[in-house]
């Protein structure tokens, strides 16, 4: 069972938030990794090749949108689900139209973590389908 569960990378500079997500995905049996900055996350992602990334937008240094574009260069089919603390945040269109970016933007605090996890699982499957086609 553990072998089939994908790995997810949690990119959030807020330790409590990052940890709560790490714990949640971990409890569901996912492989989890955390990163506090986009730069760190890029390094980690290249090491572990995650199936999906939960991306915070406002980060110290490189922001979430730049991270998505940067990650795309090496891992174009990694599913990205944006979860931001700025309510009503809409990422720029050039980010939103990326197939690896999930259409729904989650706002912190995420009241239903199950929805987030389910969205991530679905999106990873879609991204994998695309990857096979490509």
């Amino acid at each position, binding site marked *: 069972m553990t072998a089939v569960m994908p790995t997810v990378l949690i990119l959030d500079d807020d330790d409590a938030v990052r940890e709560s997500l790490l714990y949640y995905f*971990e*409890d569901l049996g996912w492989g989890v990794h955390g990163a506090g900055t986009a730069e760190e996350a890029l390094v980690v992602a290249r090491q572990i090749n995650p199936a999906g990334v939960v991306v915070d937008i406002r980060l110290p240094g490189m922001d979430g949108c730049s991270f998505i574009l940067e990650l795309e260069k090496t891992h174009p089919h990694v599913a990205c689900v944006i979860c931001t*603390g*700025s309510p009503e945040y809409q990422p720029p269109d050039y980010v939103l139209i990326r197939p690896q970016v999930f259409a729904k933007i989650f*706002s*912190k605090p995420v*009241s239903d973590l199950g929805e987030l996890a389910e969205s991530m699982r679905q999106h990873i499957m879609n991204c994998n389908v695309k990857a096979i086609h490509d």
Partner: protein
Amino acid sequence: MKKRQCTYYLLDFKKISSFILLFLFFLILFCSTASAGKTDSKFHILLFNSYHKGYLWSDEITRGVEENLTKDGVVLHVEYMDTKRHFDEGYLSLLSQLLLLKHAKCQYDVVIVSDNSAFEFIKNRGQAIFGNTPIIFCGLNYLTEGDLKGMVQVSGVNEEADLEGNINLIQRLHPQRHNLVVVTDNTITGHKIQQEVGRIQQSLGHDSVGIELVYDVTITELKEKLRSLDNNTSLLFTFFSRDRNGVFLEYDESIATVVENTDVPIYVSWKFSLRDGVVGGYLTDGYGQGQEAAEKVNLILAGTPVSEIPITWKSPNRFCLEYALLKKFNVDFNRIPEDAEILHSPPTFVQEYREQIIKVGIIIGVLILLVFALAYGLIRSTRAEETLRRAENFISNIIDSMPSVLVGVDVEGRVTHWNSRARTATGLSGLQVIGQPLEQAFPRLSTEMAQVQEAMRTREVVLQPRQAHRVDNETCYEDVTVYPLVSNGIEGAVIRLDDVTEKVRLEEMMVQSEKMLSVGGLAAGMAHEINNPLAGMIQTANVMRDRLSNREMPANIRAAEASGIPMSAIYSYMEARGIPKMLDRICESGARAAEIVTNMLQFARKNSSTVSSHDLVSLMDQCLELAGSDYDLKKHFDFRQIKIVKKYQKDLPLIPCEKSKIQQVILNILRNGAEAMQTNPDQTDKEHCFTIEINQRDPGWIRLEIADNGPGMDEATRKRVFEPFFTTKPVDMGTGLGLSVSYFIITENHNGRMNVESTVGEGARFTIELRVGGKNI
């Protein structure tokens, strides 16, 4: 030696000067006496009468001369020739010597001769006596150019008894009397009259009145003749001074005789013959002769040469008639010449009361003037009043049309003016309050008396802005301004009240709105910072709940086994201690905090909004569905028990709007309505109902009405329902932001309209109007 001589000359000069002074003194003295002598040299005029003093004719001439010599410094000498009594040659010779003597002593400047005897005398002897002294004659009967032959320096006035004028007058006044008797005598003058009558008889011809001339008679014969006259006859008396026997008669004697001896109308030629019993005539009078002569003398004394003064040939005669006798002889007054003088006519009313009439006239005149003056004054004052009244009306209109309450007070605080707004504000008319103390008329202003006194004392305007007072349980605000009335001292003050309630509310609303905007701005900035910790809390709490209570989670089971405690035991413990519920509480509280942040963000003006076209009807239905499953709604009331009446117009156009925002507004209204209906203790048994109408009355607007049948609200609440933080709910039940956020969304974000109508006890009706073309049109 030489020096002494000088002194001598000096002394001599002193003597000479004193002589000169003496000479000047005498010169002045002489001059003054000489000028005094000159004033003494007056004009000496000699009046030489033919007859004697007391002879009426001569006296009349004398009076005419005396009264008409107007030149200053005239001395009139009067001599009487007395020829009625003396006319022999010896007498005349002595008389000429006497005049010569007198003239030698006092040179006459002009000699006036009256009547024929004196004229004849002067004509014969004047040159010898008076030399070339100017001669003025008068009273000369029937003068001819020939009479003046050989005379120089002579002028004068002819005297002509106008017999023809008299005869014409008599014929005119007595047309029924066909005979006329003319009485005269056989003197020189008498002869001339006889000749004249003869001439008139010839010129009149046979058709005229028969004229009989009586002249060569004795007194007795004359009387007999007079007595024999019948009433077909009238009589013209010229004069009769000597009868056939040489008996002399005075003027008045002869005419008296005539009057006494006949009853026919008697006319006379000379004025002196006028007396009782004489009708009158075309009269020659002595006074007129004297007056004419005197005027000629005046001309001579003024420097006119005698030769240039014309002889007055036409005797100055005039008509004179006795009123009583005209009446007696039944004379037709219309036949009387217009210029005739009627003697002793009964005074007319005007003449009789002349003095009184003048007095009354003056009084009436004065009264009329007074009336005119009063009328003028009245007109002026009426006009002035009219102008004043108009001005007053005008000013009163201006004052009444002021949107302010204006109350005038006097020094004692009594009302002097009360405009229409004051009437509206108090319900009292001006008539009721003028003169009343301010406290009584306008109790609210009783606190302002101190300000009024201060304004009057300092003569400066006192302003008290935003004074609060309660009207119908609502706080109203007004600016109170007190203006002192200063003119010739202090006369009072005007209190002006301006209702600024709306202004204050608006300002407050703007302040609130600004607050909201700044809150919104702040929220946008810090939402991220708050949401992250909230996420840490809530998400961690969720994970904790899973780890403590999920008995199937493999990680849980593994950890429990490793700890030596069965998962079911842990679960039981947690349940027993209520841990999952507590964790739920953390989540709920965190969610609420997040919601407040989200709400606060609503006040931020956002440019980027996701506008798309929506069908308002389906949007409304979705909202009703949402409301039915709304977590909060479900918790507090059962939305499904509320009846929904839908009145939707078909085929409405789509509207560009932000769906979620509009939903938020609709849900807010539904929630408020449901709360109002279901929490109202008076209406627990009533069937609750929403009536929802969507239609397009105005082509540019889609209209959405949501009406409930709850308790409604009073006017004060209704007015403030959109104010931020205004709420009628208990403190923990709402923030007072819901409807104001809704209002903000509709009016600011969508450029639409939103309002509410309500009647207490009948519910409230919210109306939202959105533009068909979207917010930018």
